[in-house]
């Protein structure tokens, strides 16, 4: 079984190799300057204004909430896939289990929605 993953491994190795070339290509092929670049040259893009960006932005809590919700639904998806594969074998029993699972998650979605957590601010 593991043998069938060999092409994927080759793909990963190959694309990393090609990617590594692209990443370093400009160092190898690009123009080189004797002078050290000025500070302006190395600035991050800022429409000509002085850039005062530092690391450590603070970001809104909406992002956190969205990620948390995605985590829940991702787990739901992951749980539902194996059940979906076996749905026909188990018939009504699997259907009921799936329905309970989905409905509970749906309730969660509606709760989150009603509390306004899906409003992007």
């Amino acid at each position, binding site marked *: 079984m*593991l043998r069938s993953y060999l092409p994927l491994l080759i793909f990963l190795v190959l694309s990393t190799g090609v990617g590594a070339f692209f990443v370093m290509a400009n160092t190898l092929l690009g123009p080189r300057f004797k002078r050290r670049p000025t500070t302006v040259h190395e600035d991050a893009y800022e429409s000509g204004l002085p850039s005062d960006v530092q690391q450590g*932005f603070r970001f809104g809590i909406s992002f956190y909430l969205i990620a948390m919700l995605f985590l829940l639904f991702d787990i739901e998806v992951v749980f539902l896939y194996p059940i979906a594969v076996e749905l026909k074998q188990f018939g009504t029993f699997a259907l009921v289990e799936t329905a309970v699972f989905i409905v509970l*998650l749906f309730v969660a979605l509606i709760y989150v929605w009603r509390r306004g957590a899906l409003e992007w601010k």
Partner: protein
Amino acid sequence: MDEILFFVAGIAAIVAAAGTVFLRNPFYAVLSLVVHLLSLSMLFLLLYAQFVAVVQVMVYVGAVMVLYVFVNAYVGGGSEPEGGGGPSLRMFSYAIAITLIVTIGIAVLGTGLQAIDGSGPDDIPASFGSPGEIGKLLLTKFLLPFEAASFLLLVAAIGAVVLARRRRGVLPGEERMVAALDLLAPTGTGSMREGVGAINPTPGGFSARITPSTGAGTLPASDDRTGDDSEGGSR
């Protein structure tokens, strides 16, 4: 081939786990954890647990770690001082570490050493570790945990909303967040109040909210993102 991959993945997992603990910058620690989880997924695949391997990537790398990155961004990654933790917390962490070492020790001495020369069972069925097999197990042996999981997810959803609300408020009417680009501007920038010198935006502080105390004008929650200008100096 398997052996090479095993050692690559195993060493990567250990190094990345160590990195998660020792790296000071929380963002790097999270990235290190991502590498660790990817290596674990590789190890799962080598154990023929295909489904678990891919779910490991989907859930942990795809969701949990993105969440950590966002939390990191939310608390302002990198610049925060480390929390030392009190003596009781320290005792607690020692206790956990010792328990873990003992557990792993039992596992290694009990079965791990014997298995070192073996190559595992020979007759692994073709469907082993496939989603179908997992589905069968979820519907028979592990039915209760499966249903409990859905309930747990519901609780987690509620918890996320409640926690988020307690922290800084996300609900309408409590506090107002502004458009993404406004996040980068110091409070009150671009408003007419600034133009007439009524306020002095504090440079460097990427404050996301317009609060009454900074004097940029309180805005009704329903107001749009251009509210700053319309308020003018007419308070």
